[in-house]
């Protein structure tokens, strides 16, 4: 069926997990990293297999930086960045890239907004000029603003309101994060999107889009010297803005377990998940992050994981189960487990079975063999990541965009290799506190 990848998606960091399951790896890309006089951080990953390049600009701003009452603004601005400058008319950006065989897109998350082009390396000077131009000179016609606001509302209908599991995720985040800006849906609430104005978008652009608040990532058939020369000629001409450093508040710890149940006539298949606040690369050291990543791998990283073997293979309680740790965040991270209950099995049974497995690691730790296997997987993932010049190097820019260091990615496998079973056990202990459950059920079952 020809339903292609939708254009210009907003994403949560989980998307990167899908691309790069054990994202961060030791001395993976060996990038060249330097900073221009105006504060722009530049990361270059050389890969000369094909004469192509991935060019990305990451801004250190996202949905969590929106003013109160203006959810959806960061994502709407991402769309509006294609609506023109004095030099490039509205809608022409993507056409200019496409006319040279390139593809382009953009994405918005809680802590960052990123734009990219994938194109023959000879066109790198062009895409750098275009990207620098819209960093400094966004121009918006009112009519373009209004039609794009409608497009963004359609995107929300398609990706959230038409998808019960996305609606559940949205409500679960709100319940978990409460007073913290991570409670806001990345795409925004429809009632608030409707109220956004052209002036809001231009103000958000002025506040956050500047060289000293951005990371340039270039991966492919280039040299650092060439990228530096081009970056100085293009982005280098834009003055530093003195963008304030972002600080995320400390979330209120949930006083007790939270349970969000959602049922609709659209739902045909029950689903369950639990999520809780966990450390991130910004709030804890690298060893702690590696421990949570390893725990998520041992607990729910595929067909040989503890949860799959217990819930799916042995006890037939679930059809599928997985764990996910989100450690790359400017604020706290999160740890989640998701399961699809087998027919006739209650979500309460699933919840209890997952809690039992987490408690088992909290009490008894993991085995030396499990830890050794996890290390091997991370070392292998490093080789596979180095092979891909499009998706994999993004982890470098993502780390910098959320205020963490390149070494979060480059030294990850070393950090993981240094873990003891006690480190993983400590991570599991941290998960035995309150958490938020999300439950999706067909309407008839309620």
């Amino acid at each position, binding site marked *: 069926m020809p339903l292609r990848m939708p254009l210009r998606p907003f994403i949560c960091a989980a998307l990167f997990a899908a691309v790069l399951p054990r994202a961060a790896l030791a001395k993976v890309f060996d990038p060249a990293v330097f900073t221009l006089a105006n504060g722009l951080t530049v990361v270059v990953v050389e890969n000369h297999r094909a004469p192509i390049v991935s060019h990305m600009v990451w801004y250190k701003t996202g949905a969590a930086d929106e003013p109160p009452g203006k959810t959806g603004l960061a994502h709407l601005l991402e769309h509006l960045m294609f609506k023109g400058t004095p030099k490039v008319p509205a809608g022409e950006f993507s056409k200019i890239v496409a006319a040279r065989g390139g593809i382009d897109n953009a994405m918005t998350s809680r802590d960052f907004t990123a734009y990219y082009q994938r194109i023959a390396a000879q066109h790198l000077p062009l895409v750098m000029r275009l990207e620098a131009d819209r960093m400094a000179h966004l121009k918006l016609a009112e009519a373009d603003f209004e039609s794009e606001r409608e497009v963004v509302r359609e*995107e929300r209908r398609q990706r959230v*309101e038409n998808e019960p599991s996305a609606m559940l995720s949205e409500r679960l985040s709100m319940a978990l994060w409460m007073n913290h800006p991570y409670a806001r849906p990345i795409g925004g609430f429809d009632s608030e999107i409707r109220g956004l104005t052209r002036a809001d978008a231009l103000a958000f652009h002025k506040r956050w889009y500047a060289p000293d608040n951005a990371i340039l990532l270039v991966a492919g058939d280039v040299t650092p010297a060439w990228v530096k020369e081009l970056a100085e000629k293009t982005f280098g001409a834009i003055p530093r803005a003195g963008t304030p450093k972002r600080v995320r508040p400390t979330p209120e710890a949930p006083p007790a377990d939270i349970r969000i149940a959602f049922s609709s006539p*659209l739902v045909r298949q029950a689903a369950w998940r639990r999520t809780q606040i966990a450390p991130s690369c910004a709030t804890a050291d690298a060893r702690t992050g590696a421990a949570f990543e390893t725990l998520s791998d041992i607990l729910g990283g595929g067909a040989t994981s503890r949860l799959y*073997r217990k819930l799916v293979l042995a006890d037939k309680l679930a059809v*599928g189960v997985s764990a996910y740790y989100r450690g790359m965040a400017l604020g706290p991270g999160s740890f989640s487990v998701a399961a699809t209950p087998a027919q006739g099995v209650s979500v309460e049974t699933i919840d209890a079975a997952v809690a039992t497995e987490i408690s088992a690691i909290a009490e008894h730790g993991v085995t030396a063999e499990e830890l050794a296997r996890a290390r091997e997987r991370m070392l292998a993932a490093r080789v596979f990541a180095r092979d*891909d010049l499009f998706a994999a190097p993004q982890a470098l820019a993502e780390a910098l965009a959320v205020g963490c260091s390149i070494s979060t990615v480059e030294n990850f496998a070393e950090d993981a290799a240094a873990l003891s079973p006690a480190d993983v056990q400590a991570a599991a202990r941290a998960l035995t506190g309150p958490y938020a459950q999300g439950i999706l059920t067909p309407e008839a079952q309620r």
Partner: protein
Amino acid sequence: MKRILLALLLLIAPLPALAAPVQVVASPGGVTAWLVEDHANPLVAVSLLFRGGGAAADPADKAGLATVASGMLDEGAAEMDSRAFQDRLDALNVSMSFSAARDSFSGEMLTLSAHRAEAFALLRDALTRPRFDAEPLERMRAAFLTRLRRQQENPGSRASQALFAALFPQHPYGRPTAGTVEGISAVGAADLHAFARSRFTRDRLIVGVVGDISAAELAPLLDATFGGLPATSPLPPVAETAPALSGKTLTVEMPVPQAVAIFAQAGPGRADPDWLPFQVMMYVLGDGGFSSRLTAEVREKRGLAYGVDAGSLPLADAPLVAGSVGTQTAKIGESISIIRAEWEKMRAHGATAEEVEKAKSFLAGSLPLRLNSSPAIAGTLTALLYYRLPPDELDRRAAEIAAITPADVARVAAKWLTPDKLTFAVAGETAKMHLDAQ
């Protein structure tokens, strides 16, 4: 070894823009693979495909057989039960996956080169000695039935199923590739064994390999891995068919705020001489993202959709052009009428010289973007083989694209586009759709 080396000399062609050439490796036992040798990273990526092994060959009462098989091949083979096989894959960090399309069955493997011999042996066991044990079969059946239920929640899937059922009432294309509840429920181990025997044959096999392996090293592995497959099988070919295109708009009732429409008409097949000019024309009409007329009219000018597109779907027995759009329920009729109008405008007037130049420039210039990783390159090799194209196809295609004129585009538009036959299926709240606005 001599024979291998002789075979290697038969054909070595460059993939455009790729430092390494494509080598055609013929094993002593007669298995052929295309190889791009690349020692930059210690890994090997394999892409394989069996022609005609897909869902369209499933028996009518076992719709979903190919899909169930795709989930079962790594669930136990030879002396290893499911747990032992999965454990071995995990211990070696080998990733292996299979998938069923309508016309073909494909597989992918990625391994570190240190484990490549054992990885190929696991692939051999999966293909030639699958066990199809009862425990994993019931587990996979439950997983695929779950997936069917999830698809029933998705308006795009529902509209697509309704459209294909209407287009192909008597042909397997009318059934969902993922199967039906009845079909998946009826699949047994004997069906799966018959499936493997009849569809995994050497005459249907296509293999692409990329990475840290030489032709001389690959050749014996090809025999060891695929040599045990039957040479051929009497699997009956699926009959060619013509889609039943009413030109109407079918509806599927679903309680969603955004209606999703899927639409199709007949198009040229991959081997049709019109294929490339047709691709240029469709890029301008609906396949060119932000450069397409459908995106300009439906999304950019009117804000009616987040995504709208249309492009070739070259099914072996009934090539189509198909597309999709999602619009808030009350305005879906408006989106559909714009699409019909653009279809007619293109049919009657073709594309401007500037549009044609930009489309050609994208289609030729974007070819190297498929070469970003070893699995992506292996997949490109397999795709070229599947459509019976030569290893230097990407270079040749750039030259062929360059020769296409606006007159060619106008000719294929007038010949192929049939706005009166463009058939839609829309899923959503039908009472609020205002389809009469068309």
